[in-house]
C-alpha cells in the first residue's frame, strides 16, 4: 500500500515512501521521472541561543492536508509535469527527529530542486502547524507573522526562493 501524498501523522516520518509516491506519479507524466529532490526538516538542539529539549507540533490536521494539496496544485501550475508529497509530524518530536518531509519529482534535476524548495517555503508560510518549543528554563510557542494563504506576494516570494 502506497503512502498518501499529503498527510499529517503523529508517528516518526520516513523519506523513502514519499520518494516512491512521487516517482510513481511522475513516471508517466511529460518526459518521465529522472529526479527526486527531498527535504527533511529536523529538530535542532538550539534555537535563538536557547538549548532546546524537545518540540511539540500541533496542527489543524484536516486543513493542513488541504493546504498541502493546494501547494501541490500551485507547483503543478508552475511545473506541470512535477509531482509532490508532503508529510508533517505532530506531537512530541525529539532533537534529531524529522518534523516535515517533502519529496518532489520531475524529469530533470533543476526542476525537482525548485519544486521541493517552493513546497517547503509554502509549508512554512501557510500550513496551519504550530511549534511549541520546550527549552532549558521554559517553553514558548514559536509564531511567525500572519500569513494569508491567498496572498500572491507570499507566493511570489516562495517562487523567487525556489527559482533564484
Amino acid at each position, binding site marked *: 500500500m502506497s503512502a498518501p501524498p499529503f498527510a499529517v501523522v503523529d508517528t516518526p516520518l520516513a523519506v523513502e515512501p514519499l520518494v516512491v509516491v512521487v516517482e510513481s506519479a511522475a513516471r508517466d507524466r511529460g518526459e518521465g521521472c529522472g529526479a527526486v529532490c527531498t527535504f527533511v526538516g529536523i529538530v535542532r538542539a538550539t534555537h535563538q541561543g536557547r538549548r532546546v529539549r524537545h518540540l511539540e507540533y500541533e496542527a489543524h490536521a484536516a*486543513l493542513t492536508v488541504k493546504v498541502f494539496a493546494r501547494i501541490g496544485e500551485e507547483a503543478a501550475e508552475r511545473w506541470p509535469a512535477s509531482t509532490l508529497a508532503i508529510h508533517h509530524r505532530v506531537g512530541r518530536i525529539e532533537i534529531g527527529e524529522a518534523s516535515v518531509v517533502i519529496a518532489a519529482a520531475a524529469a530533470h534535476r533543476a526542476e525537482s530542486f525548485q519544486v521541493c524548495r517552493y513546497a517547503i517555503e509554502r509549508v*512554512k508560510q501557510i500550513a496551519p502547524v504550530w*511549534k511549541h518549543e520546550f527549552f532549558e528554563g521554559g517553553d514558548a510557542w514559536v*509564531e*511567525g507573522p500572519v500569513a494569508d494563504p491567498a496572498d500572491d506576494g507570499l507566493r511570489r516570494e516562495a517562487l523567487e526562493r525556489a527559482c533564484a
Partner: protein
Amino acid sequence: MRVTVVCFARLRDLAGLREWRCELPSDATVQSAWNALAARAPAVDAMRTAISCAVNAEFATMNTPIREGDEVAFLPPVSGGAPAHS
C-alpha cells in the same frame, strides 16, 4: 444554533479550551463566534489582530456566515512565515 469553536496553539492556552460547543444566533458569522469566545475568555483578545480562521477546514474570513453544526477554527500565526534561514 450550535457550532463548535476550535482554538489552536497559543490561542488554546489563552482561551483555556480547545473545543467549545457554542450557541449563536442563526445569522452568525465567524466574527460572532469570535465575539462569543472573547466574552467567555477575555484573554484571547490579545491575539485578535493576529488570528486567521477556517470554517469546516476551509480558510474563511471574519465575515464568513456560519451554519448549525459548523466547525469554526481560530488559527494563530504559523511558525514558519519566517526567513529561509529559520
